[in-house]
C-alpha cells in the first residue's frame, strides 16, 4: 500500500543526480586529457566497464532487479572517481581489481547503493595502494615534461600489453607531492624543491589546472544543489589552515596552503569524494566535523605519513566516524529543547 503524498516533487531523481555529478566531473577530465594525455580516457573506460560489470553480476547473484539498480548510475560515479584517483597507464588488471574492491567489497557486501559505510572508490584506491605500491606510484608525467608523450596507441599498449617499448622513466615522473616529500626527507628546502620544472605556479604543472577544473565542477555541483557548502568548505578550510599553520612554523619544511590545495586529490576530494552523500555525515554540524577532520588528516598524512597523498585515507578514516558523529550532532527537532542525545551507557 502506498499512501500520501500523491504528488511528485521537483522533477529530480537519483539517476539524474548521478548524471549531474558525472557531468560536473567532465571539466576535470578534459583538463586531465589535455595535460596528461589519453591515458585517462582508457582508465575511465576500463573502470566503468568493470564497475558496471561487477554491479550487474552481484545484482544477478542476489536476485535483485538488475535494470532498476544499474540505471541509477552510482556505479559509474564510483568508477569515474576511482579512475581519477588512480595513475593512468597502469596495467589493466589494476583498474579491474580496484573496481572489484570498490563495487563488490565496499558497496555490495553492505547491500548496495546507500548502505555502505566506506566510500567505495576510496576503498578501491586504498586496497590498491597498499597492495601494489609500485604501480600506484608511477604517475604519467605532464605531456610538456615527458621524455616521451604517450599517444593513444601507447596508452593501449601500456595498459593492455604491459610496458612494451617504453621504459617507465620515459613517461612517468614522481608526482609533485611525492617528489616534495622525498626531497624534504633528503634535506632540501621547500623553496629549492618548488623551483624544479615539475612545479607550476600553484601546484604541479598540469595538475594545478586539473585541480582548478575540479573546482569549477564543484562550483557547478553546489549551484545544482547536489551538495551543500558545508563539506567542501570545511574540507578546504581545514587543509588550508593546517597547512598554513605548519608553513608558518617552518616554511623550509612545509609547503604553503595554496600548494596543498592545488595538488593531489584535495580539490577532487573536497567536492566529489568527501561529499559522497552515502558515506558522509548528514547533519549540518556533523558535516563540518567530518570534513574538517578529513582535511586535517589529509595534511597530517601528507606531512608525516607513509603515503604521498592522504585524501583517500583521511576520507576512509572519517567515514568510520560518521555513524558516531551523526549520532551526536542531530539537529534540534522542532519543539524539543535539546539536540538528540544518546541514552547514557
Amino acid at each position, binding site marked *: 500500500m502506498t499512501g500520501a503524498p500523491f504528488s511528485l516533487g521537483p522533477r529530480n531523481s537519483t539517476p539524474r543526480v548521478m548524471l549531474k555529478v558525472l557531468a560536473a566531473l567532465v571539466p576535470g577530465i578534459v583538463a586531465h586529457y589535455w595535460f596528461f594525455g589519453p591515458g585517462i580516457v582508457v582508465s575511465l573506460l576500463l573502470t566503468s566497464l568493470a564497475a558496471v560489470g561487477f554491479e550487474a553480476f552481484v545484482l544477478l547473484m*542476489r536476485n535483485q532487479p538488475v535494470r532498476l539498480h544499474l540505471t541509477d548510475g552510482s556505479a559509474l560515479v564510483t568508477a569515474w572517481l576511482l579512475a581519477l584517483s588512480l595513475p593512468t597507464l597502469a596495467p589493466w588488471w589494476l583498474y579491474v581489481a580496484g573496481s572489484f574492491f570498490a563495487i563488490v*567489497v*565496499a558497496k*555490495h*557486501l*553492505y*547491500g*548496495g547503493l546507500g*548502505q555502505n*559505510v*566506506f566510500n567505495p572508490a576510496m*576503498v578501491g584506491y*586504498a*586496497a590498491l595502494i*597498499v597492495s601494489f605500491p609500485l604501480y600506484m606510484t608511477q604517475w604519467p608525467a605532464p605531456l610538456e615534461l615527458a621524455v616521451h608523450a604517450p599517444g593513444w596507441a601507447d596508452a593501449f599498449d601500456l595498459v593492455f600489453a604491459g610496458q612494451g617499448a617504453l621504459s617507465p622513466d620515459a613517461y612517468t615522473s614522481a608526482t609533485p607531492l611525492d617528489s616534495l616529500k622525498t626531497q624534504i626527507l633528503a634535506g632540501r628546502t621547500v623553496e629549492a624543491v618548488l623551483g624544479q620544472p615539475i612545479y607550476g605556479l600553484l601546484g604541479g604543472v598540469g595538475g594545478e589546472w586539473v585541480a582548478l577544473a575540479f573546482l569549477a565542477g564543484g562550483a557547478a555541483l553546489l549551484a545544482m544543489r547536489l551538495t551543500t557548502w558545508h563539506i567542501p568548505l570545511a574540507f578546504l578550510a581545514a587543509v588550508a589552515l593546517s597547512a598554513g599553520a605548519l608553513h608558518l612554523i617552518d616554511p623550509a619544511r612545509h609547503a604553503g596552503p595554496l600548494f596543498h590545495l592545488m595538488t593531489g586529490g584535495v580539490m577532487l576530494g573536497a567536492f566529489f569524494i568527501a561529499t559522497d552523500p552515502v558515506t558522509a555525515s548528514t547533519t549540518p554540524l556533523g558535516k563540518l566535523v567530518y570534513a574538517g577532520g578529513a582535511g586535517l*588528516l589529509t595534511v*597530517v*598524512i601528507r606531512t*608525516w*605519513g*607513509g*603515503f604521498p597523498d*592522504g585524501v*583517500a*585515507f*583521511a576520507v*576512509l*578514516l572519517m*567515514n*568510520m*566516524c560518521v*555513524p*558516531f558523529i551523526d*549520532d551526536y550532532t542531530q539537529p534540534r527537532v522542532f519543539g524539543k529543547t535539546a539536540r538528540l542525545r*544518546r*541514552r*547514557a*551507557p
Partner: protein
Amino acid sequence: MMQDYLLLLIGTVFVNNIVMSKILGLCPFMGVSRKLETSLGMGAATTFVLTLASGAAYIIDTYLLGPELHYLRTLSFIVTIAAIVGFTEMFIRKTSPVLFRVLGIYLPLITTNCAVLGIPLLTVMEGHNFVESLLFGLGGALGFTLVLVLFAAMRERLEAADIPVTFRGTSIAMVTAGLMSLAFMGFSGLIK
C-alpha cells in the same frame, strides 16, 4: 621529553592501534560492539584496568623479576591483572555504585581480553620506563576504546542495512573491521 610522551601516546592510539594494527583484544572488539552504550562502558573499564596493569607490569618486571626470572612474566602478569580487575571491581563498588552499575558487568570480561596481557608484555619487551609504561597502557586502551566505539556506532547502523544473507552478522562485521584496518593503514609511517 613532553614531546616524546605525546608522540608515544599518539603512536599507540592511532599508528600502532592495539586492535587495528597490533591485532589484540579482538574478542571483546567483536563481542561487545553491538551497542554503542555497552561499548562505551567496556572502553571505560578497559582503559582503567589497562593503565594500571601496564604500570604494575613495569614495577613487577623491574623490581620483582629482573632479567633472571623473566620466564615468570606471563604468570605473574596475569595474576596481577586478575587481582587488579578484582580490586577495581571492589573499589568501584564501594566508591561509586552508579559507576559500578555501568562498568560492573564488563570488568570480569576484561581478564580474558588478550590486549590486557599483551600490552604489559609489549611494554616490558620494549623497555619502556615507568611513565612510558603508563602512557603505553593508556594509549593502548584509548585506542581500543576509540575503535570499539566507532565500530559499535557503525554496527548499529549496519544492523538495518540490506546485507546479503550470508554476510549478515559477524561476517560483515569482520569485513567492516577489515576496512577499518585498511583505513588505519593511512597512519602507517606517521611515527617512525
